[in-house]
């Protein structure tokens, strides 16, 4: 066995273990902060898997989008609303856990079945495109995947407008969720600079 293949196997094992343990930790840990940081670790290891598959552009994009944007925003949100409150214990927690576990196991078995039955079209290492993949991805985004690409950007725009509407409640007179008139007192108004008052 050559050194390259050994390295690859070691990397793959370590990355898979990190992904599995990290993902379990995200779900099972009590502390939401630990879960969020572990999620970042899982995203990074997935990027590592992409690197092993010679898809360096996808790996970097994964780091930039998922770790640098999604995960940072999740952690940011958690820390901004980091309130210590005692949550009420849920009565039928046991049955809920059983139901969610069974649903997850069903999904897992479905995925395993797909994995086993599908005939994977594996390309040999000789025809892998490697570094050229950046150009190929660009070509696809502007030809046959143009519509999904643009629709995704419209989706993001909608999410952005929604976030602005939720954050700036002064644009609406009624609260969206309750229907009551908005308490304008609570909204921060831009205050005049201190110096102008002194004249």
């Amino acid at each position, binding site marked *: 066995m050559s*050194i390259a293949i050994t390295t690859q196997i070691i990397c793959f094992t370590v990355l898979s273990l990190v992904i599995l343990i990290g993902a379990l930790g995200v779900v099972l840990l009590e502390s939401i902060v630990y879960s969020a940081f572990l999620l970042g670790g899982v995203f990074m290891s997935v990027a590592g898997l992409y690197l092993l598959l010679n898809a360096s552009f996808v790996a970097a994009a994964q780091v930039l989008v998922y770790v640098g944007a999604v995960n940072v925003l999740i952690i940011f949100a958690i820390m901004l609303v980091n309130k210590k409150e005692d949550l009420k214990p849920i009565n039928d927690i046991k049955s809920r856990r059983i139901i969610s576990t069974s649903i997850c196991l069903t999904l897992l078995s479905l995925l395993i079945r797909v994995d086993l039955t599908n005939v994977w079209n594996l390309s040999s290492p000789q025809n892998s495109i490697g570094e050229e993949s950046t150009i190929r991805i660009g070509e696809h985004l502007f030809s046959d995947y143009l519509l999904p690409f643009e629709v995704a950007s419209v989706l993001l725009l909608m999410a952005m407008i929604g976030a602005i509407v939720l954050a700036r409640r002064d644009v609406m007179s009624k609260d969206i969720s309750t229907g009551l008139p908005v308490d304008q007192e609570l909204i921060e108004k831009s205050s005049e600079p201190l110096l102008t008052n002194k004249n």
Partner: protein
Amino acid sequence: MEYGLDLEYSFNEFLKGFGLSSEIAHIIWLPLPMLLVLVAAVVGVLVTVWLERKISAAAQQRIGPEYAGALGVLQPIADGLKLLVKEDIIPAKADGILFTAGPILVLVPVILSWLIVPFGQNLLISNVGIGIFLWIALSSIQPIGLLMSGYASNNKYSLLGGLRAAAQSISYEIPLALSVLAIVLMTNSLSTIDIVNQQSGAGILSWNIWRQPVGFIVFWICALAECERLPFDLPEAEEELVAGYQTEYAGMKFALFYLGSYINLILSALLVSILYLGGWGFPIPVELIAKFLNLPINAPFIQVFTASIGIVMTVLKAYLLVFIAILLRWTTPRVRIDQLLDLGWKFLLPISLANLLITAGLKLAFPQFFGG
């Protein structure tokens, strides 16, 4: 254009001369450039710390470090030694694991980014195809480390500092990436080697700074903000937040932050010089000089000479920018957080978008000047 020293090839050939297989030779070769770059980065930090102390002293009409070595050149080493032997304190109510992992997460991406910094045609660790994009992706990991250490310190100043650092870094990453995109558009490649080669046609006249003046200014402002240098050092604004996310840190963990921020400053200066100031290029093309002196460009002597000029030029340009950054630190007041976010989102972002659009238009109109 494929000339220049190929140290890896020569080294491997040298080892094969002793009867080693090419695989073993490659494995022996691999850590060498990494170690070299790591040492270069740390030495660069020591020089920058000394410069910072001396230049800030000069800006304030003081003498600065004077007794540790000639002109105080040993002062940064003394600082480093002091931090090394200090007690490592974890506050009682802090979160030990996250508290330790935070500084590491801040430092490691910065050092990894040195992978793509070229000092010559073949003088870099790895000419990866995604090149400059790797740096953009890696620098987006840093805010997680800052948030982590801010949270784990269990201190309101630390938490505020961490949150500010993350907000600042997210807002300035976008104009930064957009101005890099304009360069990539002109180069048709993400590789830092190609970016420098594209600027090497006519010496100083073909540097990107003349074709991308707006991009250069936007990039430099954003790079300063990413490094948390004054006027953008809000995350550690000492008058408001004690020291921001570093407040509770001592000893080597603090040193990691310190090292990280200075390595990041040097890295940003290096990248500005690579993207806009012609990288390792001499103001007058070396080929022209060689032709003028009637010397063959591929002669070993000329090769070594070109490589050393390349390293000197890269470092010189980078340190000129570091000098400007230090001067800026002592001459500009700190911006407020709302001014910072306004500048990022309402000014730099539209300007860099317009710059990208104009670059694309100019590329179509004048392909010979703006890369075809």
